[in-house]
């Protein structure tokens, strides 16, 4: 297998992009990534796009051909594939693109992600998202994602003494980071008190424990590492791409406070990269809910099970501390256009490893990790990247 590098990256501003359609977002990010990579359209061998639910959100399926069309690549008949793994669709698109280049089948490949979520009401969006859970065994009985993650949070609190204040610290940190990120949906600092007093969604999770509904798109351009320097002085090598699955329904799990898909994806990634959690300088993890970040930093192996809340409280995951987590603002503050999130995570790591992250730059960052989850852990993807 060939080594693969990211030679270009782009990401739209995240938020309520009421004036822009799914197509506009695709074109915007596509141009950004291609210009960043200095590649021409005729050089592109394949496209992969992560999109969770174009059918429900904008009544548009066949997103693969659509993005090729929007990119002006139908003239060249470039193959384009849409992949779907709920909120991990973006991470999965990245993995498919990496595999296509690594296998030698393709050279220049674009991995994109897009979701346009604000064309429908909040209720319709929540129901579309709930399709990532087990419709027959969870949703039919009234479960939504906040409810499922609330159950994870409650058991985590019961077993490990995790407090709501500790959950809130995750949101406070991610809003602080997001406030320094120009593409973020939210540019506002919040306090633990504000989180605890925000409207209740599913006990113990409150509005400020939850990621928002977001429009946005992101794209990265991949090339074999051996030719990457032709396009950029700062290629970012993908050291590992790993994926794991688990039961769709939360109640079928061995332990609902642990996302085993995250555990296995991380183990496989570290083995592939010949690294351990201590080698990671920063990570973007899947904080769809604050408890999600706490579970993630434990499941990936950064902290022992049950110690994630304490790590959040002690500030170990802040920029400037031992292990900065979600420097972009995470899903919580940067926003969560579900199909685009996995690619946005890679975009953030690319910026950080290039030293282009501005005010939120992690000094001396050399190795970064992304962690993208579908549903409440039915799918997890972990990628590890390094500055060459």
């Amino acid at each position, binding site marked *: 297998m060939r080594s693969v590098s990211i030679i270009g990256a782009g990401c739209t501003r995240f938020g309520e992009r*009421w004036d822009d359609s799914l197509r506009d977002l695709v074109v915007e990010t596509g141009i950004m990534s291609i210009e960043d990579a200095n590649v021409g359209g005729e050089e592109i061998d394949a496209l992969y796009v992560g999109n969770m639910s174009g059918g429900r959100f904008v009544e548009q399926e066949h997103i693969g051909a659509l993005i090729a069309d929007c990119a002006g690549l139908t003239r060249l008949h470039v193959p384009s594939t849409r992949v779907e793994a709920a909120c991990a669709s973006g991470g999965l698109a990245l993995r498919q693109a990496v595999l296509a280049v690594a296998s030698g089948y393709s050279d220049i490949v674009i991995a994109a992600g897009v979701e346009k979520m604000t064309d429908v*009401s*909040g209720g319709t969006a929540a129901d579309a998202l709930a399709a990532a859970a087990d419709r027959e065994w969870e949703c039919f009985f009234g479960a939504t994602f906040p409810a499922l993650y609330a159950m994870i949070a409650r058991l985590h609190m019961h077993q490990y003494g995790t407090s709501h204040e500790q959950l809130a610290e995750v949101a406070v940190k991610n809003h602080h980071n997001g406030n320094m990120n120009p593409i973020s949906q939210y540019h506002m600092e919040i306090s633990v008190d504000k989180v605890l007093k925000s409207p*209740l969604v599913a006990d113990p999770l409150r509005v400020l424990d939850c990621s928002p509904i977001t429009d946005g798109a992101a794209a990265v351009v991949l090339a074999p590492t051996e030719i990457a320097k032709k396009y950029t002085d700062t290629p970012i090598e993908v050291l590992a791409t790993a994926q794991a699955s688990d039961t769709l329904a939360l109640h079928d799990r061995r332990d609902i406070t642990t996302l085993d898909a995250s555990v296995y994806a991380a183990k496989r990634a570290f083995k592939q990269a010949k690294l351990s959690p201590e080698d990671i300088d920063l990570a973007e993890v899947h904080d769809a809910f604050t408890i999600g970040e706490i579970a993630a930093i434990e499941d990936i192996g950064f902290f022992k099970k049950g110690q994630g809340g304490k790590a959040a409280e002690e500030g170990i995951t802040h920029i400037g501390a031992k292990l900065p987590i979600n420097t972009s603002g995470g899903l919580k503050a940067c926003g969560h256009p579900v199909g685009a999130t996995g690619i946005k995570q890679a975009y953030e790591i690319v910026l950080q490893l290039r030293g282009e992250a501005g005010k939120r730059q992690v000094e001396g960052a050399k190795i970064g990790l992304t962690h993208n989850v579908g549903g409440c852990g039915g799918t997890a993807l972990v990628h590890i990247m390094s500055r060459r």
Partner: protein
Amino acid sequence: MSAGIVSYGVYIPKYRIRVEEIARVWGDKNNVAQNLNVFEKSVPDADEDTITISVEAARNAINRAGIDPTRIGAIYVGSESHPYAVKPTGTIVGEAIGVNSEFTAADFEFACKAGTAAMQACLGMVSSGMIDLGVAIGADTSQGAPGDALEYTAAAGGAAYVIGRDNLAAEIESTYSFTTDTPDFWRREGRPYPEHGGRFTGEPGYFKHVTNAARGLMKKMGTSPKDYDYAVFHQPNGKFPVRVAAQLGFTSEQIGPGLVVPRIGNTYSGSSLVGLAATLDVASSGDRIFMVSFGSGAGSDAFSIRVCDEIETIRNRAPLVEDYINCSQHLDYAVYAKNKGKLRL
């Protein structure tokens, strides 16, 4: 030739329901009243509708200035809850207030701003000399689906303005409109309750149109917020008008007298016009009032109004907005549901 408001009258049903009572029924524990800055809303009785509200408001306007109804040449009623889909509200109002048959009438609909659109139509006809007096009414028994966010604010009430050229209570110095095709809120034919775009009703709807209309009128006239003694903005809840006033540079003192929504809810087509009436109730001769309506769909009409001497003479000849607000009787959700026809028998 100057034209403007010869007289005005309002009507607000006496029944109220507290927002916390609605929240109790739906199990909403998130301090809805504080979040909306709306604490109670008016509720029509079972036999009150947009027509009865329009008639009451028009009668108050006629009585306030002692107007001979046969001088009225046009009646335009703006509402999104006209009782008939086909059959005008305006004809019933005309007959009820004693206008002879030599008048033109039509019902207007532009979500919450049809009443101010009716004012502009009357202003044009009066200024051109087509008619002597015109009556513009904004009234609604607005609909909010049970359990929907709209239910906390959808209220009932209305205001009537007699527009003419002589004996003005207040001169309309200028008006300016800003309109786009923005689907933030709508009700399809035959549907009992409107639908809305959630947060989309805010920035791209209300704020975009209100600020553009306000700035457009001030630019056209060369005025600024400090040139006005009072300001009234459409009041879908108690938060939006406060926020938009601050964005435009108006103070809380300027909008204070006209901000009636915390105590009666959103009267839709009546909303900004009841706010204007409450302001006329306290304004003095020479005061200037800035008003901007908003209707989903979407558009805003801005008005610059200068109060005249005549106001002092006519003001107390008809009930003030405050009189209606203070005449209240609270209902529980069950009786409210019956009055609003939410119970299907």
